[in-house]
């Protein structure tokens, strides 16, 4: 009796399948005359006030300029979307006529490599990856249309570290780290270099009085039960005497917690990360935010796809030093927050200017790794490869390096 119902159910299902197959062929054949279609894959929600929102707004800006359309899928990670994989999303986006796919997370590396191998002719970008870097350690010469774009956030982080050191009373700066890899090691090291320089050279204090520690939550954002809770970690930092937290995660817990404590009368601040608008969570507790401005590079990519010149290039783009907050030209920006005193703000401008005109290169030796072994000898400057593939943290920093 009941098996009969099952047979009916599956027959109906097959009928539906037969019908809907036609729909898809229609939608594919009508793609030629449509406006530019961009597929954007985000690891977090598009409104996270952090990493994913920066990509979303950058891509929206670019697609608006060319009058195109955007297909967005956010929260593509095993915790939020256990049944969606990157290759699956890419297949569907291509099925819908996407001419360029941008995968925007380090966590999507395996997935986008698989997708690029399955669709070798479709232009794709892995933002933050290194698969197209001919000199890099993970070069994939067999993927001619998978490009990489990343910003030289090292500069943004140096400015963040400087702001933290200038404003800190206790000399205890903590870094709220995501997971540990080459990228996060180089960014937290950059923060430390900026902090150390401004603590000793600008504020004229003793290097031994600066305490810089990092704690890693285990992923780019909070996954309850899996990562450490960034809210808890931020509060532990403050409870242990830290007065400035520099955030390295995709979301805004550090600035939110700093804001709560500041409004309760504590003298604490935070430097959020990734997204220009993230100080809005707690403006007066915010010293500023180093942010990515993905719009111009995504616009270039869209145009190169349109005119047929898109290639698997590796782009590691720095700030436009003429105006690091120029939305049309600068990949990396730093927007100062209300918490920064006007005096410190002026010092920060000088520091930024020195980074920009090349008179100050903080990646210059002597610099040692955390274990005391030599990273850069006296007067030696780090190469791009050395910075990108940072194997450890630097001497003077507390916290695990792997």
């Amino acid at each position, binding site marked *: 009796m*009941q098996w009969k119902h099952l047979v009916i159910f599956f027959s109906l299902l097959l009928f539906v*399948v037969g019908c*809907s197959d036609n729909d898809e062929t229609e939608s594919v054949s009508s793609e030629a005359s449509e406006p530019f279609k961009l597929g954007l894959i985000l690891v977090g929600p598009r409104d996270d006030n952090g990493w994913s929102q920066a990509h979303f707004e950058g891509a929206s800006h670019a697609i608006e300029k060319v009058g195109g359309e955007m*297909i967005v899928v956010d929260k593509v990670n095993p915790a939020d979307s256990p049944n969606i994989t990157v290759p699956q999303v890419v297949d569907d986006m291509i099925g819908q006529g996407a001419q360029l796919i941008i995968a925007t997370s380090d966590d999507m590396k395996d997935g986008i490599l698989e997708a690029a191998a399955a669709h070798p002719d479709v232009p794709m970008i892995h933002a933050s990856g290194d698969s197209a870097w001919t000199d890099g350690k993970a070069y994939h010469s067999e993927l001619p249309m998978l490009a990489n774009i990343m910003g030289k956030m090292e500069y943004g982080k140096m400015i963040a570290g400087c702001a933290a050191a200038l404003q800190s009373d206790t000399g205890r700066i903590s870094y709220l780290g995501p997971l540990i*890899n080459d990228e996060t090691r180089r960014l937290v090291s950059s923060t430390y270099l900026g902090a150390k320089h401004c603590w000793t050279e600008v504020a004229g204090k003793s290097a031994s009085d600066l305490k810089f520690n990092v704690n890693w939550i285990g992923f780019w954002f909070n*996954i309850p039960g899996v990562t450490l809770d960034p809210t808890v970690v931020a509060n532990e930092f403050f409870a242990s005497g830290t007065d400035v937290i520099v955030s390295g995660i995709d979301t805004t817990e550090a600035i939110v917690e700093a804001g709560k404590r500041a409004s309760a009368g504590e003298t604490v601040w935070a430097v959020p990360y990734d997204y220009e608008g993230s100080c809005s969570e707690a403006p007066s507790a915010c010293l500023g935010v180093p942010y990515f401005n993905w719009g111009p590079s995504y616009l270039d990519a869209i145009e190169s796809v349109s005119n047929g010149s898109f290639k698997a290039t590796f782009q590691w783009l720095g700030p436009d030093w003429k105006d690091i907050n120029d939305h049309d030209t600068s990949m990396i920006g730093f927007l100062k927050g209300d918490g920064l005193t006007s005096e410190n703000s002026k010092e920060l401008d000088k520091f930024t200017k020195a980074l920009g005109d090349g008179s100050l290169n903080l990646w210059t030796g002597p610099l040692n790794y955390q274990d005391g072994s030599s990273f850069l000898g006296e007067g030696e400057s780090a190469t791009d490869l050395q910075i990108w593939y940072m194997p450890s943290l630097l001497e003077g920093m507390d916290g695990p390096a792997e």
Partner: protein
Amino acid sequence: MFVRNDLLFLGLGILVPVCASMLVFLFVDAPPLRATELFFEGAFGSSQRMGDTLMIWVPLLLASSALIITFSAGMWNIGIEGQIIAGAVAASFVAREFEASTPVVLTAMIVAGLIGGMIWGGLAGLLRVRGGVNEIFGGLGLNFVATGLVVYLIMGPWSRRGIASTGGTEPFRPQAWFPTLDGLRVSPLSVLLAIGVLILVLWFLSRTSYGLRLRATGKNPLAASRFGIRTDAYLLLSFLLAGGVAGLAGVTQAAAVYHRLVPSISGGYGFLAILIVLLAGFRGQWILPIALFFAAVSMASFQWQLQLGLHSSLGGVIQGILVLSVLLLSGYRAISYMRKPISEEGDA
């Protein structure tokens, strides 16, 4: 009479959430008809998509098969998520440590997953039988322990070189991947495994004396023990078997879906399967279409985001409504049965 009533509830179980979903679509200004169309298109619209739906169907079927065993013994196996994880961990261990040809590695992974799941299920059973710990609390606790274990492995001994991330382990060697057909992501092997296991479980419960005694234990433990059935042993057996079957879901998740170990390897499918089994009214054959329906909703929510630009949370809202409607209907069904005069109840 009974069948008709069940069909009515099954119909309601589908109709009520669907209507509620329609209202949600109207609320967010999405065309409900297009959304419905996308439901079918997204889940079954092409061989690739159908395959992807089956990829979700497989762990749901396996987890449901596992739960049918413990439900038959009158147990709420909330620890199923942990058992899936334990199976995945055991299979990942084999995938990482043993180099051999694909059939050998996959067989070893399946056996390891079975054993891993049985250990985890057995622990919940032991806690219940020997420790007097309610299986719901024991299971929940073991779920947390399993998650802790998998995060520890991924961040510690099994971490990628130079990386400490909960993102997952290095992908397995290709020998440890379930084979797929050209152009499809789903592995026919995992589909066959899931259907085969469901049939085996139903056969065991309905056609063997062990199954009969296990069901007797579930229906009335006191009466069963008076008949000389060692109810404790059968409770433990149900957890061992359920754990083993759930462990297989972990194997397919690791070897056929992610090809590596990730913290959320169980994907919440264990909890979803509880609802499937409830909705199926513990009748095995209904698990097939109901699990397929749930898998289809998961696929459709992706299409709603992709093609209608709906917020990604909306899929979760719809699933939440589905789940709540099912719970509500199950509750209502239980109440309506209780209110029925004894003469109408018939035999169970």
